[in-house]
């Protein structure tokens, strides 16, 4: 078990999400930064999709109630284990009664805590992700509070070395496969969507201007602020299916990017869709930060997906090789 000692609101149990029930109005939920979740799980010897704690409000403190192994990935929140500093993207064995503390990150938005064995909450419709709107999944369908206790599954062998080890952060390892930030502006790749043509010449400003992530942004969606983009003439659309990454244009002319807790249906015209492989970077973008859209293609998106998959495969393959090599050397 682990016990939450201190937490802000909106920190939840998340895995990769709940799929196959959108037709019944069930949002997919799941981690905002799926890549950080997968890397954390691989470092502690889990399958990549085990349930983790997504921390997006800080400070966050927890106490381990037995010996186990934990990984901290995603935003660098200057993690401390009993006061000892840990690097980001790090896995380490911990002892019963030790306390882990996460501070507000200076860059990026969300940290993920993966535990060897995974968080053992009851799956709902095939997922342990918390659906705050539905009030199910995760821990009783709600966000974590102080004194909450979470059960951790058992795992046969986890050979993380005593001083811990880490993964190369994806920002570094995959740098050549993602557009670089420009003066702190996150460059996000997108593909024109269904109603793009309705915006005519106005659409050009969707790509050319820098948008600010407004304070009305959360796991459901990011509302962007900037110079409005308006339709040549208003259109009324029937409600249609919506998925994370869809960029809608409400009458205000300021776009909404649907995120992990995306509505399952909506009626606003869709100007673009953020490519799936870029959503984790958006998931780490902070309120008040700036983004710019750059036009992408299916081929480019698939290329980036292959690079991400190769990075994950490399970690999955190298973790046991490294831990075995270290074990062999420590016996010498």
């Amino acid at each position, binding site marked *: 078990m682990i016990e939450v000692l201190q937490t802000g609101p909106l920190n939840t149990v998340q895995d990769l999400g709940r799929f196959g029930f959108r037709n019944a109005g069930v949002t997919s939920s799941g981690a905002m930064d799926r890549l950080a979740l997968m890397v954390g799980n691989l470092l502690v010897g889990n399958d990549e999709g085990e349930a983790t704690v997504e921390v997006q409000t800080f400070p966050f403190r927890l106490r381990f109630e037995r010996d186990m192994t934990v990984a901290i990935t995603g935003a660098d929140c200057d993690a401390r284990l009993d006061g000892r500093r840990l690097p980001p993207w790090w896995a380490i064995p911990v002892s019963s009664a030790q306390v882990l503390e996460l501070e507000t990150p200076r860059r990026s938005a969300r940290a993920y805590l993966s535990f060897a064995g995974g968080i053992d909450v009851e799956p709902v419709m095939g997922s342990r992700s918390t659906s705050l709107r539905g009030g199910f999944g995760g821990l009783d369908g709600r966000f974590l509070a102080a004194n909450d206790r979470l059960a951790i599954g058992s795992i046969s062998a986890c050979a993380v070395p005593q001083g811990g080890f880490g*993964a190369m952060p994806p920002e570094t390892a995959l740098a050549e496969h993602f557009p670089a930030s420009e003066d702190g502006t996150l460059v996000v790749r997108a593909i024109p969507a269904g109603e793009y043509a309705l915006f005519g010449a106005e659409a050009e400003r969707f790509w050319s201007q820098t948008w600010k992530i407004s304070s009305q942004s959360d796991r459901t969606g990011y509302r962007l602020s900037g110079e409005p983009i308006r339709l040549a003439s208003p259109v009324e659309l029937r409600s249609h299916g919506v998925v994370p990454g869809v960029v809608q244009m409400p009458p205000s002319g300021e776009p909404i990017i649907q995120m992990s807790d995306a509505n399952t249906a909506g009626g606003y015209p869709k100007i673009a869709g953020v490519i799936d492989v870029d959503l984790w970077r958006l998931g780490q973008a902070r309120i008040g930060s700036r983004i710019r859209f750059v036009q992408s293609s299916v081929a480019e998106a698939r290329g980036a997906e292959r690079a991400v998959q190769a990075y994950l495969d490399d970690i999955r393959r190298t973790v046991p090789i490294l831990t075995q090599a270290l074990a062999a050397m420590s016996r010498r």
Partner: protein
Amino acid sequence: MTKGRKRKSGSLAEQILDPATLEEIALWLENAGVASIEIETGDGRLVRIVAGEDTTSHGAGMDRLVLVPTEPASVRPAKAPIAGHFLPVHPAREAAEATIGASVLPEQIVGFVRVGPLIMPICAEEAGTLDACTVESGDLVGYGDSVFLIEPAQ
């Protein structure tokens, strides 16, 4: 020293510097196809013996051995935990975990070694002052290579 052989008096370092011993070590190196060995003495001093490049000379001897000066006994190394590429700063951070001249605590991370997609910590073994870094960023380091020198706290 070969088992059963009578031990000479004096420190281990003095024993190794004895010409007869050096000749014997040179033979071992040659027979094993090994270029160098590093011997750590009880007081923490390291003696590294490197076979010379002149492999055409007859038999093994002093002329083929080079004694490499090592760190003074008072300075302790922080060693690479595994072979890989040295990272002085974590790739997701802007500053090193400890800077030269800073005080370090036992088990404190002072640098990293990259092994493919993974990162291993280089840790201080005891409390002291981080004295020097002996390799360049990105250099390939071997298991047990000294990467930092630490002046132990008195």
